Structures are given as C-alpha cells and as structure tokens.
C-alpha cells in the first residue's frame, strides 16, 4: 500500500485519507483508437443491495428496514433505474451515465470462489483461477493482447505505485507515481543503476522506474494544468488518480489498460452513514475519469467490482457482515447501458444463499470475459488462458457493437 507517498507529492494533507486508493497501468500497443479498459477494485466488499437497491422487492425491508433508503422521488431517496431498482443517491454521475445509456449495473454477481475472507476472496477475484495464482487475469489478458510489437517508449512507462495481483504476471506492468520535485541528478542515478544492474529485483525496478519517470513527468505537467482551478475543494486521492488514469490512457503512446483501487466498503457498523463517503468518492472519480479521457471515453469500458457482497440481514450494529452475491458496475462510452443486467434471484427465505446472502446468478468472470472478448477483442480461445479452470462463457451484449 503505497499511496501515502503520493500524498506528499501531490500536496495533500493527512496521509491516511489517501491510503485507500491506488493505481496501476499496463501498456499495450496500437493506435489512438485502441479500446481502453479500466478496472476498479472495490476492496472490502461493497453491499450491492445498498448501491443498487431492489426497492421493488417487497421482502427487502423485512431484513434491513433501517438500511433501505426512501424510494425514488422522496427526499434523500434512491435514483430510479427503471422501476424495480434504485441507485444510491451518492452516485449522481453514474445515474447520469445510466440515463445516457452508458452505465450497466449487473446484479447478483459473485466470483467463482466461496470464501467470506476478504483476503482469500480478493486473491481469487484478481487471479481469476480456481486456485490462487501469483498472476492476475488482467495481466494475462494484456500479455496476449499486446502481441509482438514493442512500443517506442517501452513498456516501462507503465505507472502506479502498487501493482495489485490483478495486474501482476508475465506482461510487463509498471506503477505510477508523480516524481518529486527534488531528486538526485542523472549521473548519480546512472551510478545507482550500475550498482543494481545484476540484481534480479532492484535492477529492473530501478530501470523501469526511471524510464517511467521521463514519461510521467511530461504527462503530469499536462495533468496538473487540467485540474479544475477551484482550490477550495482539493480533489480526493481517488479523483486525482482517476484524472491521472484518464490522461495517461488518452495519450497516444500511453497504456491501454489501468487498474485502480478504492477501499472503505467493509461496513460492519453504521452502514448508512459509512457508505456515503466511498460511494461519493467513486462517483467523483468516474466524473473525473470521463472528463480527463475526453474523446477517448467513447472507446472506454470501466468495470467496478468487489470481492463479495454482504449479508441481506442487517447485523446487530447497523451494518452487514460478509456475504456472497453483490452488484458489479460497467460504465463507459461503449457500454450497452441504461438497464440493469443480470437475473434477480429474489429474497424469499428459500431463495437466500445459505439463508443469509444474496444468491449469485451471474459469474464475475463471465462479465470480465465479455468485456475482454467484445471490447478488447481478445480471441475467444484465449479465455481459457486468462481464466484457467472451470470453463468461462463470456457474457454477451455488454458493449455496443462497433
């Protein structure tokens, strides 16, 4: 967890408020019209029933009366998603995108694993395999997509401070950090490179770090220039990372795939209050990403996913405990949105998973595979490499054709 460094560099205040988000990139070759893909890891288990609330299900309130917001149209109420579901009122930007047909929530999504441990489940979600691997599915996808061409500015321009398991693996992926204003001169760096040249860990890391710095220095200058002039509200860390991600992805020779993380979802207590902030941060980040991508938004898909959902029943402390199915959110210029996807499993006692959780009806891997095939144009046979183990059938119709 490396964000706090960015705190200092971007001039933000308390470090801990930033520690919950981070960003990493993978680069792939091609032209400016390449499809772009952003994955947002919501670490800590988002309560899908609060983000996208099935207010039309009469059983919902019997489990969690105090956690359900007023229906659409009422003060502080949900934002309507077509009569059965409502979006959390903190997600205004996403609701606007839904209205534009560019946001597709999918309900009752779960991973292929059955673990209620954050750590285990996140590892499975990111590695995308039936057993825990040391590489992630997005990295394996990138290693296939990038083909044989090398980029003139090198794969080392990848950015991001910490590389999540999702992006670790054979394809070269870097991490991004804005360079500090003061650092050693080139000559000293060269001596340091020489000292580390034969070391398998520090040698390549320093080499790539310096290459990336040349690239990010230039891009960061543009990014800072594009920040809104309003200094009274300094953007939060996730928003800043989203702006940076958008700028990097929009660059003709920049990366094509990025992963961001945002935490704060593990709402065991006072969930109503505690969910507002992370949801609002997520929403502001999406607005910033869209803006900084500019025209490239038209070629972008964003997938926001979490390791599992939370119990349907409210627990004893106004929160919810670790559960199973939840919501996943797709958004972007090519998303076939404006509706809620997935199959609603129902909330009758017999319909709950293990009598406590929302039952899964859509496999998270199928969603990801659908985007990889139809948007990034990953060849269908490669799906078995990206998601080894039990066969994954890519979900259809997630993106508009073209």
């Amino acid at each position, binding site marked *: *967890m*490396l964000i*706090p*460094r960015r705190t*200092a560099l971007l001039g933000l205040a308390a*470090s*801990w408020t930033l*520690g*919950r988000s981070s960003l990493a990139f993978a680069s792939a070759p091609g032209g400016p019209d390449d499809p772009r893909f952003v994955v947002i890891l919501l*670490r*800590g288990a988002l309560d899908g029933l609060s983000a996208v609330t099935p207010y039309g299900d009469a059983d919902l309130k019997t489990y969690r009366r105090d956690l359900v917001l007023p229906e659409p149209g009422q003060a502080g109420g949900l934002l309507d998603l077509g009569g059965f579901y409502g979006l959390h009122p903190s997600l205004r930007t996403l609701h606007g995108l839904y209205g534009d047909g560019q946001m597709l929530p999918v309900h009752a999504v779960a991973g292929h694993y059955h673990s*209620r*441990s*954050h*750590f285990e489940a996140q590892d499975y979600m990111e590695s995308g395999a039936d057993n825990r691997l040391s590489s992630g599915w997005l990295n394996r996808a990138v290693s296939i997509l990038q083909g044989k061409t090398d980029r003139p500015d090198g794969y*080392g321009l990848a*950015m*991001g*401070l*910490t*590389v999540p398991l999702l992006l*670790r693996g054979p394809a070269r992926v*870097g*991490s*991004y*950090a804005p*360079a*500090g204003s*003061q*650092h*050693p001169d080139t000559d*000293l*760096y060269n*001596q*340091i490179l*020489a*000292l*580390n040249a034969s070391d398998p*860990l*520090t*040698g390549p*890391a*320093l*080499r*790539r*770090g*310096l290459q*990336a*710095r040349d690239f990010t220095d230039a891009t960061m200058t543009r990014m800072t220039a594009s920040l809104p002039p309003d200094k009274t509200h300094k953007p939060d860390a996730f928003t800043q990372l989203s702006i940076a991600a958008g700028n990097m992805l929009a660059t003709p020779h920049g990366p094509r795939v990025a992963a961001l993380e945002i*935490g704060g979802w593990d709402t*065991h*207590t006072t969930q109503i209050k505690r969910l507002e902030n992370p949801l609002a941060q997520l929403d502001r980040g999406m607005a910033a990403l869209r803006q900084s991508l500019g025209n490239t938004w038209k070629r972008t898909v964003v997938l926001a996913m979490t390791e599992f959902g939370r119990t349907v029943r409210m*627990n*004893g*402390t*106004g*929160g919810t*405990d*670790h559960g199973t199915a939840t919501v996943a959110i797709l958004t972007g210029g090519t998303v076939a949105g404006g509706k809620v996807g997935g199959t609603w499993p129902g909330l009758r006692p017999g319909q709950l998973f*293990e009598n406590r959780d929302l039952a899964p009806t859509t496999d998270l891997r199928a969603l990801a595979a659908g985007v990889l095939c139809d948007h990034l144009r990953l060849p269908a046979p490669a799906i078995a490499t990206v998601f080894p183990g039990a066969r994954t059938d890519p979900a259809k119709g997630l993106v508009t054709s073209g």
Partner: protein
Amino acid sequence: MQFVSAVNRFGWGQRDDPPSGISLHDWFARQLTEPDAAAFGHLGSSADGLIALREQRKTKQQGDPLVKPIFQAEVAAQLDNLLVTAQPFRERLCWFWFNHFTVSLRQGSTRPVIGAYMREAIRPHVDGVFSDMLVAVMRHPAMLMYLDNTGSIGPASPTGRKSHHGLNENLARECLELHTLSPAAGYTQADVTSFAAILTGWGLDMKAEQPGFTFREKAHEPGAKKLMGRTFPEGEEGGMQALRFLGTHRATYHHIATQMVGHFITDTPTPQDVSHVASVLQASGGNLRLASLALTDLHDPARASGKFRSPMDYTTAVMRALSSGGAPSLPDDPHSPAHQLAAGFASLGQPLWTAPLPNGWGDRAAEWCTPADMLARTDWAWKRAAHATTMDPMDVARIALGPALRPQTEHAIHNAGSRQDALTLLFSSPEFQRR
C-alpha cells in the same frame, strides 16, 4: 563474522560496531531473558487515552486537542526507542507481533489507545506465552474498537431483545482467520457466528473512572455455544476458555510459526523450517521466547539474499546507520528524529500504525519493490544523506553491512563526488535493501 548479518536480519539495522565478547546465541538469548529495556514510564495508559477521547466528545472539541498530544508522545517515545534500542531482536519481535495482531488508525477511533496497545497488550508478552498475548489483545480497548466488538450484541440477550440489535462477526472472524487458526484449520461459517456469540458482551465501559474493558452481561448471548466441536459455557468465562483453546491449538502454532519464518527468514518458508518452530511452540505450550530462539537457529548467512526490507525496515536502517536519535524527540517537533522517521515510513508507503486491512502490512519482496518504490527510496535516502555532515561514508557502510558490503559498492562510495552522493549510493545498493 556472522554478527552483522544476524543483527540486520533479526533486528533493525546495525547502528554501532557489532557486540563483542559474547556469542551470537547468547546475544539473542540475553535480549529475551533480560527485561525490556525500553523506557516508556512517562506515557499514560489506555484508560488515559479513553478519558481524553471521552472529554473531547463530551465537550465537542474539534481538532483532536486532547488525543493528539497523547498520540504524538507515543510516536516520539516508541520510534526513539526503535532508533537506539540495544535489544533489536526483542524490538523486531514487538513490531512483528503488533502487525500480527494489527490495529490500524484507519477505523474505530483507535488513535487515543493505539500506542498504549503496543505497550500493554504486545510488548509484555513477546517473551511470554502466545495465548496470554492473545487474551491481552482480545480484551484491549484498541482491538475491541478496531474490529467492532464493542457493539456486538447477543440477539437473545436482554439488550438484544429490547433493542433488536445483534451480532457483529468482525472480530470473531479475523481472530480465527488471522490471529489464530487460519483457514487451513477448516472452520465454518457456523464457527464464526458461534465465536461471535461467545464474544458478545466483551466491550468497553467508557463511563468508569478508569475506562476500559468490561463484560456487559446484559448484551451477552445466553446459553452454551459450540466452536470447532467443543462446547463453551455462557458468560465471560466462555470467551476466556475459547481463547485458551484457540491460542493453544495445533493449527494456531503451525500458522504463527509460518508467519514467523516468513517474516524473519524467507519469503518462501519450507515445511521443515516451519515445523522446527511449530514443534517448539507445541512442546512448550506456546512459549514465544523459546520459539523465537528456535527461529534464530534457522539463520544462515549464506541463505540466498535474505529478506527484502519493507519501507519501515529500510528507513529505520538508514537512520540507524546515520546514528540518528539519542536525545528524546519532542512530541510536537516535526524535525525531531522520531517524527522524521515516521514521515519516512509514510512517504515510502507504510505509514505508522495505518495498515490498510486487519491482516497488517505484507513482508514479502514482491510487495515493496515496484519501480516507484525503488525510486522513492533512492530519493528519500538522498534527502536524508544531505543531513549527514560529519560521518565518513565508508565507516557507515562497513558498520551497516559488514561482510555483505560488495567491492563494487565500496568502489562507488570511494569514488563518489560528495558525502551525500556516497551515502545515497550505499543506501541504494542492493545489499542495503536486504536484511
């Protein structure tokens, strides 16, 4: 000369010439048989922290005016000790166990008690018995607040029936998964729920003259409960028995032995190494002094490349090598050594007592050696080195690394154009990134 490599691996980076006139084995053993030399007498208890929190809340004071000085004094005293300790093995064990039983500033208003947690629940037990540490942790206000147990209520208890409030599984789950058995033991969701019920009522009395742990009978779920096939009685005693059961379980010993070997010896513990430590825990009823000494048996200076330093390891080792610290840090002086060290942790991505999740900070190389990490270390070391105005970089290098110092690095230091450059080269060498 095995001393430097052992002192670096099991401690916090060599500060002075290695100890003389004593065997390595005795040097380790003495640190765990002699009392903890850290002097924290001027710091208050967790009750004092909770009183400050209570007053702040009562009078609705903004900006943490009562808690902040308590926290700053903890940072100053505990990091000062880290910089100068002559018991570096004991000190690393303290921070290892703190991380095993992570409490973080990220949630639960733990700021007024997190420093006291280290001193009250962790430090006294690093040379004691594991299950005693477990009990001290689980009853400490910091843990009860961090993992939400203060509000967990038995649904069939008087409070539960009146308020319609119920269980919060957080502490129970993380205790089974992270602190004791680990998922390898094969416990089920029913065990988690049941253990949460066992722990209902374990909370805080904030109104008492000395606020702290209390067992709230009225919130406790009535009846006996089953955990891992065993039955535990109703009441506070049920929780104590369950913790003794978990704290002495074979799976727990295996799990903590794995964690210890992983932290001190290698990123990839072998079954033989783990069972060497686990068997000592099993035979001794969880004696951590004996287990820690068994760990030192596994030290082999020839073992490939040692452990990669985390940001906390790295910054501490740099500042110890530069002989920073000595005079007590002023709690509110950001330029004092302790606060400079804390700023170093934060700028390299591992802010003090702020682990993202209850599993604590990772200690594997892959987590800390990304390109951005390495550049940030170099840049930070360069800035620190600017403050070293009197030391001979070659002396610093020989003391810090001993025989691990490579001729290539020695040559680069020798030919550097300035003291700052020479020290930056030392601290950016691959051998300094390891312990």
